[in-house]
């Protein structure tokens, strides 16, 4: 297992967001987490990426204990993510946004930057190249020189992915990559997720578009009130009576958008 959680629990002032949750993400797969609004999906992402500290439980990423580590330390272990509500650096250009993604792959510090030493300049060239590759991979190569603030919403979604990929992660957390996209863009996103998986990058996916989830996922974890309702392949999950009950029992916001 690349990522393994056991007994994970997190509550906010008496409201339990994640309750005694166990799951494991095998390397190389697309692993989706689904569940109704408020089921704890984003809380789970925030725990995994180190923004929240769980009250209890263990979290292991490729043999390393994640609990108590700061976000930047977790990122440096080879984990990267995108956000449900975009977290773009709007004060920077498209290329620079992705160059920030290369931060942990480079080394030049304050002194090297101030004096612009030859080694620093060589590294800058490399960072530029890496960032350019990530942009091309996400189909944004033509927008390199633009300010991030000039991009339309769909392109910003892909910019976040390019920035995350520039870090060359082993695990990529994608928080609702298709939210707010039209049908064509959703189709493109599906292709992009597939290409990322083909690169051998493990993907942990939170997504509300069930059509997309069923098509791209290898395994699915269904959350309800912060605990595990079901887990398995898309076919298993779809035929699980509990899932069907939870989904068809009056809840309509799971219809394919």
């Amino acid at each position: 297992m690349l990522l393994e959680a056991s007994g994970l629990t997190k509550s906010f002032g008496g409201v339990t967001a994640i309750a005694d949750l166990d799951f494991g993400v095998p390397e190389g797969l697309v692993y989706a987490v689904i569940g109704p609004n408020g089921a704890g999906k984003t809380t789970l992402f925030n725990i995994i990426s180190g923004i929240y500290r769980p009250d209890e439980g263990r979290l292991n990423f490729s043999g390393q204990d994640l609990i108590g580590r700061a976000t930047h330390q977790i990122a440096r272990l080879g984990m990267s993510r995108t956000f449900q509500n975009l977290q773009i650096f709007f004060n920077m250009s498209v290329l620079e946004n992705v160059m920030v993604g290369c931060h942990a792959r480079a080394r030049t510090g304050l002194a090297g930057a101030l004096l612009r030493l030859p080694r620093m300049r060589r590294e800058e060239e490399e960072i530029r190249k890496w960032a350019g590759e990530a942009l091309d991979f996400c189909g944004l190569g033509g927008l390199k020189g633009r300010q991030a603030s000039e991009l339309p919403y769909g392109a910003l979604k892909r910019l976040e992915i390019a920035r995350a990929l520039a870090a060359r992660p082993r695990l990529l957390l994608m928080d609702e990559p298709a939210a707010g996209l039209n049908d064509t863009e959703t189709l493109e996103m599906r292709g992009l997720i597939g290409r990322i998986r083909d690169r051998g990058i493990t993907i942990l996916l939170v997504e509300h578009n069930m059509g997309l989830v069923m098509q791209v996922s290898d395994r699915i974890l269904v959350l309800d009130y912060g605990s595990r309702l079901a887990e398995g392949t898309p076919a298993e999950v779809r035929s699980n009576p509990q899932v069907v009950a939870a989904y068809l029992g009056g809840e309509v916001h799971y219809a394919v958008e």
Partner: protein
Amino acid sequence: MKRLRGWWLLAALLAALPLIFPGNYYLIVVGASAGLFAILAVGLNLLMGYAGQISLGHAAFFGLGAYASAILTSRHGWNPWLALGAGLVVTGLIAYLIARPVLRLKGHYLAMATLGFGIIVHILLVQTGSLTGGPDGIGEIPPLSLFGWAIDTDGRWYAVIAATLLLVVLLALNLMDSRTGRALRALHGSEVAAGLMGIDTAAAKTSIFVLAALTAGLAGSLFAHQQAFVSPDSFNFFVSIELVTMVVLGGMASTYGAILGAVILTFLPELLVVFEDYEVLIFGAILMLIMIFLPQGIVGGLKDLWQSGHRRRGRPGKGDQDAA
């Protein structure tokens, strides 16, 4: 070198001014003063404009550098350059010690904390009379000398301050166009995302806070030797506010904007003297008008105008390539 075009232009301008207006006492003296404030503003802009962390107590570091030089040279007979170095060490150390707890705060709370720090330093300068000379300050500060050449005329001070400004600007430009600079701008854009890209945001904020403080300390040492006299009033709360105004007026996150802000805020009151009683009123009105019509600051506003002009003339710009 395209990257440093602006820097060469600034160097040429600073060198040309005394040649174009030879013997213009006013320009040289006020120019040197504007140069010192430009050094301060460029340093503060690293912290405020680029990294997005406000400081309402920046004059304190200016004062620490100035008093370190003043006390060590006039009271203890230190070599001025050694005193300048010691001043930087002290300023940097104090900045480092307060950076971690203070920079955990955000927005208004950070403003309050830095404001408090600035006021505390000012009060200490006034109250610890045996060390700082109290409200009367310290006089008879010996001049700096460079290779046995005393910097004791207004023209020489202009040259030293201009050279220092050029050095500080060069370092600032280098820094912002680097991995470290991008990390600072990123944490301004989104601190959460910056952390998740592997940036140690607390360490990045601390180092830029210390660097901005060191720049102010350097300006303070030069100021002490240039004036040959320091008193607490040169480093009070209003000076901190003036520095923030320079950065905002010129255009946040623009090194040249910070310089422009410093030049305008130094020269404008001098030019407005002819209005006598109405000087402050007109000064305030000009600042308000600039911020209303150019909310991005002067450099930011002009950049926007330039780009929209380009678009109107049909050159590639915003909106044209969205389909690509």
